[in-house]
C-alpha cells in the first residue's frame, strides 16, 4: 500500500499480534500487486493495454468490477473507475497551472463506464480507455484484512491503511477506540475531532495533499468524470462511517463529488459524517 499502514490489536499475546499484523500485511501486498495500475505484470495492466480486445478476469476482479458497476449506476455516473485517464492532464502540485480545455476534452472521450462491455467474466475496454481501482482498492484491502483477522481472533482490533480503517468491537472496560480526524492543513499534527468508533468502517476523502489553485480557488485532486475538472467548492475533507470500509469510502467520495452539496447529500443518506 502506498501509504502508512497499521494494525492495532488489544491482546496480551505478542505472538498473536505479530501473526495478525503479518496477515494484514500479506493481504495488503497481495491486493496492491494485483490491482495496482503502476505495475506491468498484473491483470489491470493487461486490461489497460488490451486495445479493445476482450479480457477474461478472475472471480475477485469480477466482484470488484461488479461493485464498481453498482457504484456507477447508483451515483448516476459520478463514480467511474475509467476516470483515471483524466489525471494525465492534471498535476496537483499546489501550483496555479491547469490544463487546456482542449486536452481535457480529448481525455473525456476515453472516460465513461457505460462504454465498457462487462459481461462477467469478460471485460471489453475500448482502446484508449483505462480502469483504475485506486478509488476502492485501499478500502477493499482494509475490509479484506479485517475479515481475515476477525476469523483468527476474538480480540478487538483496528486495521488502518493510510487513514481508511475498519474497527471491530470495543476495548476492555467498554472503552472505544478513539479515531482522530486530521486538520487537512496540518496532517498528522493535530486532530480536529476525536470520534468514538465501534464496529464498522471509517474513510476520508479530501484534498489534503494534492491540489491546484485556479482563479484563487483551491481545487482538490478528485476529478468529476463528467467535466474532467476538479470538484469546485468542495469541502476540504469528508469523513464517513459505514458498515464496511468500502461503504464508508465510496460514500465519502460520492459526497465529496457533490461539492457544496456534500453536507445535504450525507444528511439525506442518514450516515454518520464529519465535514471539515
Amino acid at each position, binding site marked *: 500500500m502506498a501509504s502508512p499502514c497499521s494494525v492495532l490489536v488489544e491482546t496480551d499475546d505478542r505472538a498473536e499480534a505479530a501473526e495478525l499484523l503479518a496477515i494484514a500485511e500479506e493481504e495488503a501486498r497481495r491486493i496492491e500487486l494485483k490491482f495496482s495500475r503502476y505495475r506491468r505484470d498484473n491483470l489491470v495492466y*493487461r486490461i489497460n493495454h488490451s486495445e479493445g480486445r476482450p479480457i477474461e478476469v*478472475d472471480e*475477485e476482479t469480477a466482484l470488484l468490477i461488479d461493485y464498481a458497476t453498482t457504484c456507477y449506476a447508483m451515483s*448516476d455516473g459520478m463514480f467511474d473507475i475509467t476516470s483515471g485517464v483524466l489525471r494525465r*492532464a492534471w498535476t496537483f502540485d499546489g501550483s496555479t497551472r491547469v490544463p487546456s480545455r482542449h486536452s481535457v476534452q480529448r481525455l473525456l472521450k476515453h472516460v465513461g463506464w457505460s462504454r465498457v462491455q462487462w459481461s462477467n467474466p469478460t471485460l471489453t475496454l475500448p*482502446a484508449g480507455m483505462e480502469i483504475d481501482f485506486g478509488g476502492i482498492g485501499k478500502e477493499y484491502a482494509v475490509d479484506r484484512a479485517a475479515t481475515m483477522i476477525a476469523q483468527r481472533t476474538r480480540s478487538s482490533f483496528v486495521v488502518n491503511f493510510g487513514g481508511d480503517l475498519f474497527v471491530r468491537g470495543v476495548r476492555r472496560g467498554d472503552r472505544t477506540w478513539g479515531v482522530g480526524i486530521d486538520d487537512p492543513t496540518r496532517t498528522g499534527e493535530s486532530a480536529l475531532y476525536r470520534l468514538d468508533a465501534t464496529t464498522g468502517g471509517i474513510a476520508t476523502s479530501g484534498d489534503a495533499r494534492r491540489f491546484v489553485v485556479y482563479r484563487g480557488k483551491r481545487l482538490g485532486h478528485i476529478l468529476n468524470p463528467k467535466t474532467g475538472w476538479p470538484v469546485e467548492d468542495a469541502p476540504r475533507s469528508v469523513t464517513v462511517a459505514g458498515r464496511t470500509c*468500502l461503504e464508508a469510502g465510496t460514500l465519502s467520495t460520492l459526497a465529496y463529488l457533490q461539492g457544496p452539496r456534500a453536507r445535504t447529500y450525507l444528511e439525506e443518506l442518514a450516515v454518520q459524517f464529519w465535514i471539515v
Partner: protein
Amino acid sequence: MQLEKPKPPSALRDALHTAALALLLVPAATQAQTAPTTANTSDSPDRIDVTSLFYGEQGRTSIFEPVVRFTHLMQDGQSLSGQFGLDVITGASPTGELPSGQVQTRTSASGRTITSSAGTLPTAPFSDRRFAFDGDWKKPWGRVVTSTIGGHFSREKDYQSLGASGMIATDLEHRLLTITIGGGVNRDTVFPVGGTTAGLSSSAIISTASNQKSVANVLIGVSRVMSRRWMLAVNASESHENGYLTEPYKLVSVLNPTSGVPLTSLTEKRPSTRTRSSVMGSSVYHFTQDLLYSSYRYYWDTWGIRSHTLDLKYRHQFDDTTYLEPLLRFYTQSAANFYTGGLLQGNPLPDFASSDYRLGALNTITVGGTYGLRWNDFPGDWTVRAQLIRQSGNSSPPNAIGVQRRFDLSPPVNIYAVVVGYSFGY
C-alpha cells in the same frame, strides 16, 4: 456536478452495502488461488514496434532502414524481444584523398572507379545491404533485481558482427537508487571486397582471408530519484577493441612537399588496439506537465581522441499521448594522433596514418524534434522524429601545402534523418 435523478438515499446505501458484502464474503482461500491463475494466454500483452529511418547526406550517402521489433511480456514480469532490421545504403563516401587541382580518374583494387572533379574531395560510390537481428531476454529476480541478456548478429557485403551482452540492475533504498552493471563482447569479421591490402601501401593486395576484430565492453551505472520530479544518473564505461580496426577502402594522399599536388594514394593504416572510455551524466526533470532530458558525455580513447557531447530534449506534453519534443545536440572531438591531411613525398612513412575525416577534429550540431501522437480510436502510438545534422571540420588547416590552400578541405556535411515509428500492443 449534481445528481440528475437523485436515487432514494437508502437505496444507494443498501445497494453499496449489498455489493460490498458480495465482494467481501468470498473466501480468502479462493482468492489466493485465483490470483496467480489470472495468467490468460489469450490476452498476453504482445507489442510490435516498427520504425523506418530515411537518412540522406548532401551529395553523399542515402539510407533507408526499416526495423521491426516484437516484444512479449510474460505474466511474471519477464519479457522477450526480437528485432530485425534492414539497411539499404547507396551513395558516395569520401576516400580520404585530397583534391588534385586536375580531373582525376583511376580504378581501385576492388574494381570500383573513383572519379572526382578538380577542386572537390574524391569520393567513391558504393551500395550495400545490411541485415541485423537482435534479441533480448529480461527477467526479474525477486522484487529488486533484474537481469537482461541479449544477442546480436548482423551481416553486410564485407562485414559481419556477432555479439552478446548481459546486464544486472538492482534497486536499493526503496527503489530510489538503482545500480546497473553490464558487459558485452563482439566478434566481428571484416572481409573487404577484392581482398585486404597492406596498410600504407599502394593498394597491393596481400590477403584474401578475412580479418578479425573483437570488442569487449563494461559499464557501471548509478541512477537515483532525487525528488518527486527529478532523476539523475551517472554511467562509466570502457570498451576494448582488438584486431583489424582499419577502414579497408580509405586512402591517404601523398603530396608533393612544395606544390601540394597529390602524387599518389596509399591505403590507410590504424593501430590494432583501441581502448575507449567514457563517463556520462544524465538528468530527467519533470515540470508541472513538461519534461527536460539532458545528458553530458566525456569520451577519451587511446588513439588520442577526446570528445564532449551535450544532449538536450524538452518534451511538451499536450496530453498523455500527444507531445512535441524539440532536441539539440552539440558534439566536438579532437583529432586522433595519427590523423593526417596528407603525407609528404620523400618523408619516411609513419607507423599509422589515416585521413578519414571522422578521426579528425570535428564538430557536430543537431537540431530537430519529435512529435508523438495517437489517432482517435485507432490503436497504437505514432512518432515522427526529424533531425538536421551539420558536421564541420577544419576547412583550411594551417599546415595545408601549396594548391591545397585553395580548397575547402573539410566542407561541411549536411545530413537529414527522419524516423517514422509506430508502436502497437495486442
